[in-house]
């Protein structure tokens, strides 16, 4: 299989505008004959569903929460990037493009990344029009701050609740379309499978989580916007319900999965405190603008942070990366923290944290100023840990956060199944091997508001005259039966261990062997370990109750079943990439001073994997990345 990314020819700056000029359109009168399914109501899904409905396509949208407004995008804190250059500090579309590509360790497509930066300008305008209350200067102009991996201030923010406010904007646009009858919204529905009929995505099978009823939905195209699967590590910064099921079921129906092993481990999460713990809470990266990160110079230091004198502190980020310091990108900062923790310099009860210290900033700017900038984060910290971070440094630790990998899509955001699109965190595109902060909200919004409406129309224009497939098609019968059998199967095992038990075991295994650092040996062990765990799952799982009622344990079990397969693919992916890049750090491939050693000669590709059945190895289809406009360089932040 030859992967065609369908990148338009021509200069970087005009690729997208050229595409838009040439893309086929659908006559407004015909749009109502082309129904579309959008799974997910996060920033990607809600913006796509609303924008498509505005154009006149009948949209059916789905989320598993009780309301579209609760999609995980709501939790994003720090901000959203846009190359507006409002601060007159030298920002530009090109600079943002370059920062993003470099931040991703040159493992993303030039054309996609350029488009992301280009569309970022419109996104801010769009959000402001919807009423998103971004931070403003006293004179009324929009305000900005800066995030890891860049030297300009291009991040727009709404206190520490940027995701919430952007999502509410998109949700409100979606609600408007619901009230106009253009969108039919099914909340508390979980997509359990994709229906591919006559070679094209034509619908989904979903479970009504309130009744247990299995329902069929047909459409002329299916858009998956189901977010990331970082919850596979169990302990992560993600919401409890985040899952990989929709993308995984689509993968098993023929869509390739790209770079599944690239998971961002975020440097500023709260450390784990006990076994009962269900999640790790993120502290926004924006804290690194004013917070300084350090550990004691002495291993196994017992003194309280404030009792350790200045000269006995190791500000290791400032030491190793002088020009970016505390704003070094996430992969670098996380790894540097792990390095210090593993070497015995960790702090806190479990010795698994580093300090994030505001004393200097408080001294220079005053407590009030810091309170104004980060007050809600400080109070969140206090709620969770009962500690006062104005008085003593915060303790932070790396945690699984964001999946750079996902369904493989071409420039049009279409997967390898015609008619199946993937947007937002559910696809692999744009971030490369590491995502710069504040680029994900951007990608989710831009995919949904500005890209998909063009590319989907281009596809749908070809479907108009074709015969419509309805839910009476035999493929719907067949796949629905498979879904029902799987659910019944999970309920019938009647073993002795809960879904959470397996999820926690899997998460630990992955974090240790396919987390911040990986080795051939560890990954090979992990693959074996996952197989054993999976076998145990199907023998010893317990799910109470039945499939035809509200049953959150059954929901969890289905998601864990998929995680147990995704995990194995992650390890294969990590094993096959014999280099270090971004979030993927292979211990065998590092420089003398412990930095990632990339191999552009052999691995300058996107790894796209094909499902070959449950007893076969996945098949790799590399999409070689061509860099026409920039020169690959060593990613240095020192």
């Amino acid at each position: 299989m030859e992967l065609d990314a369908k990148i338009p020819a021509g200069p970087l700056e005009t690729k997208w505008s050229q595409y838009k000029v040439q893309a086929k359109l659908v006559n407004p009168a015909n749009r109502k004959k082309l129904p579309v399914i959008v799974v997910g109501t996060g920033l990607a899904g809600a913006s796509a569903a609303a924008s498509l409905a505005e154009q006149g396509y009948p949209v059916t949208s789905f989320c598993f929460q009780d309301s579209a407004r609760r999609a995980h995008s709501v939790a994003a804190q720090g901000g959203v990037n846009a190359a507006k250059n409002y601060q007159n500090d030298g920002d530009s579309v090109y600079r943002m493009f370059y920062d993003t590509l470099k931040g991703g360790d040159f493992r993303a497509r030039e054309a996609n990344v350029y488009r992301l930066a280009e569309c970022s300008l419109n996104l801010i305008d769009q959000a402001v029009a919807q009423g998103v209350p971004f931070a403003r200067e006293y004179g009324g102009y929009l305000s900005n701050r800066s995030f890891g991996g860049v030297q300009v201030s291009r991040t727009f923010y709404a206190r520490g609740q940027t995701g919430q406010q952007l999502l509410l904007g998109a949700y409100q646009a979606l609600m408007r379309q619901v009230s106009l009858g253009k969108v039919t919204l099914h909340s508390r529905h979980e997509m359990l499978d994709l229906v591919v009929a006559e070679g094209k995505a034509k619908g989904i099978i979903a479970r009504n989580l309130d009744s247990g009823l299995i329902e069929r939905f047909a459409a002329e195209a299916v858009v998956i916007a189901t977010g990331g699967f970082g919850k596979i590590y169990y302990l992560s910064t993600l919401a409890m319900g985040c899952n990989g099921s929709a993308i995984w079921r689509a993968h098993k129906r023929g869509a390739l999965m790209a770079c599944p092993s690239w998971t961002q481990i975020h440097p500023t999460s709260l450390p784990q405190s006990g076994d009962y713990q269900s999640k790790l809470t993120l502290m926004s990266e924006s804290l690194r603008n004013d917070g300084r990160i350090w550990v004691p110079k002495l291993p196994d230091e017992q003194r309280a942070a404030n009792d350790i004198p200045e000269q006995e502190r190791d500000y290791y980020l400032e030491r190793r990366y002088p020009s970016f310091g505390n704003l070094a990108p996430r992969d670098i900062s996380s790894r540097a923290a792990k390095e210090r923790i593993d070497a015995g310099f960790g702090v806190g009860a479990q010795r698994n944290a580093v300090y994030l210290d505001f004393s200097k900033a408080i001294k220079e700017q005053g407590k009030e100023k810091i309170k104004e900038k980060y007050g809600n984060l400080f109070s969140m910290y206090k709620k969770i840990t009962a500690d006062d971070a104005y008085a003593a440094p915060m303790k932070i630790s790396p945690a699984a956060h964001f999946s750079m990998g996902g369904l493989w899509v071409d420039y049009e955001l279409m997967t390898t199944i015609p008619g199946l699109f993937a947007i937002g965190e559910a696809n692999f595109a744009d971030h490369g091997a590491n995502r710069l902060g504040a680029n994900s909200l951007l990608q989710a919004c831009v995919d949904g508001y500005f890209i998909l409406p063009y590319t989907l129309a281009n596809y749908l224009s070809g479907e108009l005259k074709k015969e419509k497939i309805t839910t009476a098609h035999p493929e719907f019968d067949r796949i629905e039966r498979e879904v029902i059998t799987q659910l019944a199967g999970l309920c019938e095992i009647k073993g002795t261990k809960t879904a959470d038990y397996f999820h926690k075991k899997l998460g630990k295994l992955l974090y240790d062997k396919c987390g911040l650092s990986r080795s051939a040996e560890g990954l090979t062990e992990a693959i074996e370990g996952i197989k054993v765990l999976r076998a145990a799952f199907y023998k010893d799982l317990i799910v109470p109750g039945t499939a035809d009622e509200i049953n959150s344990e059954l929901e969890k079990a289905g998601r864990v079943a998929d995680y147990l397969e995704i995990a194995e693919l992650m390890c294969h992916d990590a094993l096959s990439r014999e280099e270090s890049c971004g979030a993927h750090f292979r211990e065998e491939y590092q420089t003398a001073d412990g930095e990632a050693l990339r191999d552009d000669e052999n691995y300058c590709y996107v790894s796209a994997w094909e499902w070959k059945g449950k007893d076969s190895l996945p098949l790799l289809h590399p999409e070689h990345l061509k860099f026409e406009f920039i020169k690959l360089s060593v990613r240095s932040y020192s």
Partner: protein
Amino acid sequence: MKIHLKIWRQKDAKTKGKLVDYMLDQVDHHMSFLEMMDTLNEQLILKGEMPVEFDHDCREGICGTCGMMINGQAHGPVPGLTACQLHMREFEDGATIYVEPFRATAFPIKRDLKVDRSAFDRIIQAGGFITANTGQPVEANTLLITHEIAESAFDSAACIGCGACVATCKNSSAALFTSAKISHLAKIPQGEKEAAKRVLKMVSRMDEEGFGHCSNTEACEVECPQGISVLNIARMNWEYTKANLLKD
């Protein structure tokens, strides 16, 4: 620590519910309230019983999904917190804790602690938005909004739609929720244009959904995890009166 729980169990909207007793004897005081509930559920499942159904997702106080009455208070005893942010260190060893669903006619019970809050979505559908299609907006900085106004709009926009205000109100009024959205959009220039239409539609939808009237007891503000101020309700009333007076 030891905790004695009295939890509302109810199979579905039609079946009668009751409080059921549970004992947990190894609760870590660092646990969040929901982690304590997870621990209970794990034990119930292993005993072959149905776990307690409750809604939750982000577990960071931002999605608004979790919600339950804990000892008679929405989201429990600590002001300004959602249930997911409440920690067991707030309770004493040996405490008895009552856990019940949010109750309101407009929030029918689904099972145990899960309730249906979709009435909130329908209030937003009635007009809780700015009519702005994708692709039409003007350059963002052509719309100047002072720091103070942006901050004040934000204070209203911060509502997470959890429903604690309704659950705690003796009239089951949705005034705080609805007024927060009305204020957010009325305060900023983009939202002003539709303010009159918006308030009339949202208020009448609120009534149709079966929420009660606001009688200014202000219990909602006390229980709101986001500190949404009752001044929003005053603003809603003002916008409503204005809209009615100027209606042609």
